[in-house]
């Protein structure tokens, strides 16, 4: 699994490109080892967090049944803020350097599609050998990237639940419906005080009914019947499969849209927030992201009805992704996406209504309820502090909603004028997370898969910048550890 191929870039079979490749061969000596070191740091930081988390009794790790006790025998110590933050910062730096290396490799190469590569190979006597070398190099780079991302995902999968108690809420809602016959849309987990999962649900969510869509609730129901441990592994497996689907679709769509698929894969799959917070917490946002990327993939093969349906199904997992639909319809200028969305909405709403009654399809009231929450990490809260206010006031919620509406209207206008609808959707998702008063790490993952497949590099820069700020905001315990 050595990334030597990163060193040489992918020279194109033309004289000018060969010159570029030669010029580019000078940094080759340090680029491959540096990429290897970055991959190693990402793996080491992830292993450190997972092994320390397996020791339990950490303020960063939620109370959890023992699902990965065997990892404790590998060593490690109780995960404290200091180790966690240093690991996250190290992983973030390694991630940034790795992306820069992969990006410069892609820039050194002239984009060659498979067909073009084959055609140009016949132009000169030396060309076929060069193209074969390039293909081999690219294949090596691809395998290395896939291997790294797969390892990161698997390490987190075998470990304990990280950072968040949300997965216990998912399981509690499932068990409420399957085991106790209680509607999770009208009751909070407090309705199943005697259930083993109740002990692990976050205190703030004990009296809160589910805010997730009926599609998610229905697919989570089979896991409710598996008991606490079985259900928890089921949730982790859902997250892993959703992550794999998101990454596979990102890879595929990046290639179809002429983007560097290795860069796209690493930008999403090696992202520390994606791996540690998203997958580590087994968040259902990953299922939403997989359906979002499926919708984009469908549009590329002109299956607009399926694309519209995928967005609706995604929105009935977690409502946020619904923001893609107007951009898709406006850009595609076809009614098929709308019809597909309407059919999917009708079918899913019917299933939701039959399973949960009217509360199961009332996603809007759940969104309104959650939008009133305030988290310390939210940017509105930080801005309030900057301007000398103790926090976000009710009027601020209205101002933020108005700002979000203006941004979305601007993006719709831009899309109507020919701007890439995928990029517009990514900007809208980023705007939602930045203007939200309830911001959690996995919310700023939403625009990432879209950002890596668009030509507008500002979106990726803005997304990574916001993620960077989020990580910086966590670091105060490093400067003054309270114990």
């Amino acid at each position: 699994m050595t990334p030597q191929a990163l060193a040489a870039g992918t020279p194109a079979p033309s004289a000018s490109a060969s010159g570029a490749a030669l010029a580019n061969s000078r940094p080759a000596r340090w680029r491959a080892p540096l990429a290897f070191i970055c991959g190693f740091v990402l793996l080491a930081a992830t292993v450190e967090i997972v092994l320390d988390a397996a020791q339990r009794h950490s303020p960063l790790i939620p109370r959890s049944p023992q699902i990965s006790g065997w990892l404790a025998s590998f060593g490690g110590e109780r995960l404290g803020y200091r180790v966690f933050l240093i690991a996250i910062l190290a992983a973030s730096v390694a991630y940034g350097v790795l992306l820069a290396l992969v990006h410069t490799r892609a820039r050194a190469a002239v984009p060659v599609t498979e067909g073009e590569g084959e055609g140009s190979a016949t132009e000169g006597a030396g060309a076929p050998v060069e193209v074969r070398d390039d293909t081999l190099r690219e294949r090596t780079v691809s395998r290395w990237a896939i291997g790294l991302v797969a390892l990161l995902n698997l390490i987190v999968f075998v470990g304990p639940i990280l950072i968040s108690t949300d997965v216990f809420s998912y399981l509690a809602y499932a068990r409420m419906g399957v085991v106790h016959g209680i509607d999770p849309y009208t009751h909070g987990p407090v309705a199943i005080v005697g259930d083993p999962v109740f002990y692990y649900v976050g205190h703030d969510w004990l009296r809160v009914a589910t805010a997730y869509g009926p599609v998610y609730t229905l697919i989570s129901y089979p896991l409710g019947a598996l008991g606490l441990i079985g259900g928890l592994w089921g949730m982790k497996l859902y997250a892993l499969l959703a992550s794999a689907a998101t990454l596979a679709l990102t890879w595929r769509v990046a290639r179809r849209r002429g983007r560097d698929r290795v860069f796209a894969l690493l930008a999403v799959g090696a992202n520390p927030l994606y791996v540690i917070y998203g997958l580590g917490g087994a968040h259902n946002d990953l299922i939403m992201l997989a359906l979002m990327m499926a919708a984009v993939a469908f549009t590329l093969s002109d299956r607009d009805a399926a694309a519209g349906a995928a967005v609706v199904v995604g929105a009935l997992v977690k409502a946020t992704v619904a923001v893609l639909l107007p951009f898709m319809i406006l850009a595609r200028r076809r009614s098929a996406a709308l019809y597909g969305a309407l059919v999917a909405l009708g079918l899913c709403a019917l299933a939701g209504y039959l399973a949960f009654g009217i509360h199961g399809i009332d996603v809007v009231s759940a969104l309104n309820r959650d939008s009133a929450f305030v988290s310390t990490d939210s940017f509105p809260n930080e801005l309030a502090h900057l301007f000398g206010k103790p926090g976000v006031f009710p009027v601020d919620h209205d101002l933020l909603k108005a700002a979000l509406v203006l941004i979305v209207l601007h993006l719709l206008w831009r899309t109507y004028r020919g701007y890439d609808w995928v990029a517009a959707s990514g900007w809208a998702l980023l705007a939602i997370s930045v203007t939200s008063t309830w911001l959690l790490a996995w919310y700023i993952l939403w625009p990432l898969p879209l950002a890596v497949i668009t030509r507008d590099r500002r979106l990726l820069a803005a997304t990574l910048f916001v993620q960077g700020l989020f990580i910086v905001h966590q670091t105060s315990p490093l400067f003054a550890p309270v114990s």
Partner: protein
Amino acid sequence: MSRVRLIETTLLILFGLLLAGATVNDVARQTHVNQRLIEDLRTWRAYTGRDYHNLSIEQTLFGERSQREVVCGNTSPGPPKTRVQICLAIWGPVVGGRRVVHGGWYLPPDTEEDLRRHRYGCFGPASAGICPTAAEAAVERGSAHSGAGA
């Protein structure tokens, strides 16, 4: 670069700078708060003569921005909150690595939350108005006894 794109990019950079400023400001603010909490914990340990680490800090009892904290901890060894706890109301400048204790109260064993009705043995000016009156304490004791006998 089109005019619209130029305007968008300019606005994005300005907004990014604003967010960066807000983030750095918040990290500095939280670091200051943490420094103060460290002094509070040190004060509690010096006042009680106990080197316990499982202490709880309440920052909002005297107001969100009052910079007045209440630190509670066990009076004897044991898991957090399972023994009689002593709570100290602490505020003022740091002098010699400590802040000033302005009063306090005790909480019975196994009390999860520091509620007015649970407080007893109150002392110092800080406890005025936030501890139960003698009549309230009698009612609380009565209800506790009747609860125990039920």
